């Protein structure tokens, strides 16, 4: 059942993204940022964590999870270190994702050429 809910919730988030592209005529960049901001807001309202518990990878794989992680890290360090935690915590949880994006893109750029 976990798999089914992961599929349904993850799929629904993608449907929202597709609607942003096709109906709202957003650029891919704007659609992506909108989803990140939505994830951030949902976490601020303490709604994203229950969604992850419910749908697992269905909620952690889509880009909304990145917004969630940004806010999550900031809030966690805010409680631990005070106000400075907002600044230091933003990339706390997301650093693995960001670093691997940079490292793997660099490696890919070394070995392959865009085909056009």
């Amino acid at each position, binding site marked *: 059942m976990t798999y089914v809910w992961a599929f349904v919730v993850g799929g629904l988030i993608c449907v929202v993204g597709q609607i942003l*592209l096709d109906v709202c005529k957003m650029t891919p960049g704007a659609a992506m940022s909108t989803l990140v901001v939505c994830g951030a807001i949902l976490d601020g309202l303490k709604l994203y964590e229950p969604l992850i518990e419910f749908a697992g990878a269905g909620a952690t794989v889509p880009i909304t999870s990145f917004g969630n992680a940004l806010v999550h890290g900031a809030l966690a360090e805010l409680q631990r270190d005070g106000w400075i935690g907002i600044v230091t915590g933003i990339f706390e949880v997301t650093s693995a994702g960001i670093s691997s994006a940079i490292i793997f893109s660099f490696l890919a750029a070394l070995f392959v050429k865009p085909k056009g």
Partner: protein
Amino acid sequence: MAGHRTWVFENRPVIVGTATVVGPEEGNGPLANDFDIIHGDKMLGQKSWEKAEHMLLEEAVKLALENAGITKEQVNYYVGGDLLNQITSSSLTARTLSVPYIGVFGACSTSMESLALAAFLVNAGGAKHVLSATSSHNSTAEKQFRYPTEYGSQKPPTAQYTVTGAGAAVVASSGNGPVITSATIGRVVDMGITDPFNMGAAMAPAAVDTIQAHLRDLNRQPSDYDMIVTGDLATVGYQIALELFRKHNVPIEDTHYDDCGLMVYDLKKQPVQAGGSGCACSATVTYGHLLKRMARGELNRLLVVATGALLSPLTYQQGESIPCIAHAVCIENGGTGA
């Protein structure tokens, strides 16, 4: 001059030589046999797509001069343009040629814009040989007008596939070949479409406007032409153009009306969404395919209406809709009445 905006060339400038060079996708299309050179590699062994486009244009220009049997020293003027920033490919080609150069920009309508100007120069006695050439490259155009292809963003079915290629023609005051008998210069028509993935729809009204002006200025009917082709309206724009002709009571069904964007690819088999586009779309189809059909006597009077979407990164950033234009050139077999 006839009517409001049509030039009639009573001295009948002749297209004495042409050349077309295309890339792999066009080489897999239904018109492959009509092109002079087909490249299997989109990079043409160059370091960048921009350099590859420059090469396409230089090859087409050199071959056109060869086919016309003239040297570059005999070229009085080179009229041309392309889709890159500040018509880079054309300027670089003009640097190599080192002949007097008139750079023009009409987006994808540049093919007929430059041919019309070349014919005007020759007809007025301003030149003996004028070279008209244009190019486009799929990957450079995607980068210029939409997203770099390596970004991998989705394309809707209304999007068009820019033709990788170049087409060149030498217009002369005398010689053997098809003659240019008239040309109609388009005006900018903007119906408020902002989507760079739906340029056919944006350009269709401009094409219809120019065709109507051409017929009105010369007091002709569509049936006076064996064929009328638009440059790159593709599936979506072609249907809109047909509807507009019907609405404006233009009996377009009396002639064979087609679109170069629909002819250059096999839309069922090739991944080109709604069809072809780009300066090279109308240029390669006209100079490669259509002029060969004229030479075989299958067509005697042809009207090529190259359509251009005059959008740029700047118009997009300013939130502007897409200004569109179309230029028409009438080409006839030598020896037939004007």
